[in-house]
């Protein structure tokens, strides 16, 4: 594992390896820069080296400043996909969570080059 963060009440768990990033939980950190900068930095480093990369989001809630962080991450991923990296993004949401489903649908058009899949789950 290259980089990990423990899940807290306000922040999701983050697991970053050579070929995969998994983000699980709720995201409304007190300081979004403090939370997001190491993730963005480490993902950028990984994308520079890998040819295949999978991203899994299992979020239950995120606030507006976290949305900004997600857009930054998505842009970086899509740029990498445009540059030839095979990137698959999976947006998983609880089947009865309309809010996360709608957010996932909105994010879809952020990707021109990477593949993006919406995946409902019974429980996250």
């Amino acid at each position, binding site marked *: 594992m290259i980089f990990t963060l423990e899940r807290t009440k306000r922040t999701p768990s983050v697991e970053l390896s050579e070929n995969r990033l998994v983000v699980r939980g709720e995201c409304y950190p007190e300081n979004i820069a403090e939370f997001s900068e190491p993730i963005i930095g480490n993902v950028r480093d990984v994308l520079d080296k890998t040819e295949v990369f999978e991203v899994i989001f299992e979020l239950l809630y995120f606030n*507006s400043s976290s*949305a900004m962080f997600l*857009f*930054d991450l998505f842009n970086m991923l899509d740029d990498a996909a445009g540059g030839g990296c095979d990137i698959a993004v999976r947006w998983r949401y609880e089947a009865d969570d309309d809010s996360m489903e709608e957010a996932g649908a*909105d994010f879809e058009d952020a990707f021109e080059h990477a593949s993006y899949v919406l995946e409902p789950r019974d429980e996250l």
Partner: protein
Amino acid sequence: MDDLDPDVIQKLIADIPNEPTRLEIEKVFREFQRLKKTLARLVKHADRTEKKLEQAAAEAAEKSQEVQELSKQLAKYLSPQIYSQIFEGGQHVSLSSSRKKLTVFFSDIVDFTKTSDSMESEELTTMLNFYLTEMTNIALEYGATIDKYVGDAIVIFFGDPESLGVKEDAIRCVQMARAMATRLKQISNTWQDFGLERPLQIRMGIHTGYCTVGNFGSENRMDYTVIGNGVNLAARLESAAKPGQILMSFDTFAQVKDTVTCVERDQIQAKGFADDVRTFEAVVDEDNGSSLPLNIGQNQLTIPVSVLSLGELRAIQKSLQIALEEIGKNIEAR
């Protein structure tokens, strides 16, 4: 969104030659389009969050209303003091108790079983609820803690969870009992409407003493109540009282004697108590007729003539006649 940083934008602009190439213009345009999209998504996200918050606020308000309605219903089953202690967080709801000097009051309706046997259930319910409502309103007015209703009987105590001191608690209790007796006289004509031939009469017993007060029962079902010898004595005094009488122990009398007119009555043999118990009656109609000041031992009593029986009045008259004759003879001899 480093791209939004003015320094970065400035650098991008600086990097463009005086005559930008088509590719460079396209790059800036793409960045602009991406930012525009991001902004639109953010606004959408904010709108959705706002909508969700409004929905959550509406649900919370609805739940809060439901809880308020439920607690209003629950309040009817609890004494107001106990209700506020629990709901304002002052009293932890657990199986615990403490020993305190309380004034305990018992009352019941004279011949209620006989009366209720001859009444239809609906009439009986209406009549009993009317009676209990009238008495409860008075009790609450005097700051009583209503322990429980047992059929027609009412158990009340003063001194927990709020106390104004042992003396004031006892005075309030006796004054409450007098107000109840007065109210019953005021509504004596009402009972005919319920089909009763004669007005309702009640017995009242009061004792001031140490009791154990708190929550008793199990963790699943508990009652806030009082137990102990003091409670039993109040119940015995109530049983021994005559219809319409407020009978109290010496311990209560000692607390109220300077405030409430009392008459000592016969001692009673109370079950569970080794010694006979001195009893005192609280006079209800003090203003009704003249009063006799009497010194008996160290007790100074003011007895309204109206509370004395014919036999007692005759005995006093005889004593006074003898005394007057003795005084006359002494005066003549001098």
